């Protein structure tokens, strides 16, 4: 079952990339002096990708057929992070979104470290470790901004 999903998803992914490339390639200009043209390479790659996706689809079909013959195997859990990891993932998603609303990068990063560390291990030691790490990150970023004249997001 997992094999079927893998092949099918890879085939769909390939098609989803190749088709827009094929369509957008129509607008690539061609110059008279160039025997090949800027369109040929992306079009050739997109066609190749479609071919590989078709081959993946055939493998998916074979996996489906052999799966039917062997009886359905229980599907393996695909997304199964542990609790601390789920916390870090949620914090990372929030961090990635907040970066684009131009919040101060240094304090946002410190807050992200603190939230990820402290919430993934909600005890005194976890909080102290996270606070130490967040403090280190804030100081490191302040130092880098001061000494390397970096322009940081939101500042």
């Amino acid at each position, binding site marked *: 079952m997992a094999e079927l999903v893998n092949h099918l998803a890879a085939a769909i992914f390939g098609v989803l990339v190749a088709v827009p490339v094929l369509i957008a390639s129509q607008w690539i200009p061609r110059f008279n002096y160039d025997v090949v043209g800027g369109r040929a390479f992306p079009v050739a790659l997109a066609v190749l990708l479609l071919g590989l996706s078709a081959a993946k689809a055939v493998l998916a079909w074979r996996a489906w057929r052999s799966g039917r013959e062997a009886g359905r195997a229980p599907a393996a859990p695909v997304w199964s992070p542990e609790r601390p990891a789920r916390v870090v*993932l949620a914090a990372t998603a929030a961090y990635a979104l907040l970066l684009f609303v131009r919040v101060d990068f240094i304090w946002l990063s410190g807050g992200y470290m603190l939230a990820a*560390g402290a919430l993934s291990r909600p005890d005194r030691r976890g909080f102290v470790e996270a606070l130490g790490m967040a403090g280190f990150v804030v100081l490191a970023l302040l130092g880098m901004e001061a000494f390397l004249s970096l322009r940081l997001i939101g500042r």
Partner: protein
Amino acid sequence: MPEFLSLSSLLFAVIGALSGLVVGAIPGIGPASLIALTVPLTLSMSSVDAIVMLVGMYVGGVSGGMVSAALLRMPGTPSSIMTTLDAFPMAQAGQPERALAICIGASLIGGLVAGAVLLTLAKPLSIWGTYFGPWEYFTLISMGLVLMASVVAGNVLGGLMSGVLGLLVAVPGVSAADGALRLTFGIGPLVGGFATLPVLLGLFVVGTALTALLKKEKATEQIGLRGNPVGSLLPLFRSNTVNLLRSSLIGTWIGILPGVGASIASMVSYTAAKSSSPEGDKFGTGHPGGIIASEAANNANVGGALIPLIALGIPGSAVDAILLGALVLHNIQPGPLLFTNAPDLAWGVIVSYLFTTVLCTAVLLGGLRTFAAIIRVPKALLYPFMIVFAVLGCYSLRNEPFDVAVLFAFGLLGVLFDRLKLPLAPFVIGFVLGGLAETQLRSALMWSDGSWLGILERPVAVLFLLIAIATLVVPPLLRSARRRATA
């Protein structure tokens, strides 16, 4: 005095080796993430200092992988997978110091053998490379991609898809050959194409972190260290001279082949050692021969992979592709002319490789207990730390918020690749060499008035093409012949 022998270069080599060892020892990160993360910080450094430090990280990263492989049964880097088979059982049987000492000694010898080959072969190969024309370059890149794609047994299609996707990601922006604007989909910042650094940081830092967070990790017991490891190594190595040399040469040779990588090198040399040893049946139960084969090969592989990188500008692995990206960011094009245009840099890579190989041995022997403690860093703090510095690295490059979006997009793509079982290495090689491959192909076709038959006038190009075709065609033919024979 050459710049690579200056105090600053040596200092940066030490910093690189130490940070590589630390990161290599922590399971799940590896030298690729570290090097990608460090590249933006090197932009204000001299190119020689930068590349010397990055090579130090590469050597340190591969060497550090042995610590967690022996003490946790979790390879710090994929190249240490085979080390776990014998080093962990030996450590479990009450000899963790001996297991690590064998790893360290074998790594040193593997590294030195590869260093000697690097020293001897790199310059002649680069001279040979000056005779390469566009057809040779295009077919060499194609061969590298095919070899890399076909390494993953049973997933050649996935490897090829990954390589083609990498080549496609290199297309958007202004075409280098004719200045035409391609595949920007109306996105302004895409006119310059995808910048190398956000893509690499996304795949190797954000992608690695997210992938690790999405997987359930099994709790493992760590074996503690008691005594000093060095002791009866010399007699053991003397009785394993053939194994050591064979594994080192296998590692170096596989490193020279574009794209095959250190994990395959250690698997091949492990299999060779097992099949040729009279005690082959004891491999996998804590046999020193297995540890020697794996560690000598994976360290030798690093040196071998540096040969095509500096001599031809063709990366031998994903880490080498990142190094190539770093060189390009420093306005240096590796390849046949590197020894002429930037001799300090070319020799700096070689000297730094040899120096850090010896340095890593000394540091590992002296600080084993420290490294044994490092491998337990809480992931909830480590991964956010990596992500913050990846954002900083890619934004500080050109103060472009679009690059931060690219970073996270390619981080998610890294997760998708992991889920779809698509190998990342062909993608990276395709992305880094895509522009060069297209430019060379178009030059070659212009040269022969648009005819593909022009390739027949270039025997080396034909050879590269035949190797690529044989790599794709021969294994399935052999498999079907074997199936027919058994039926």
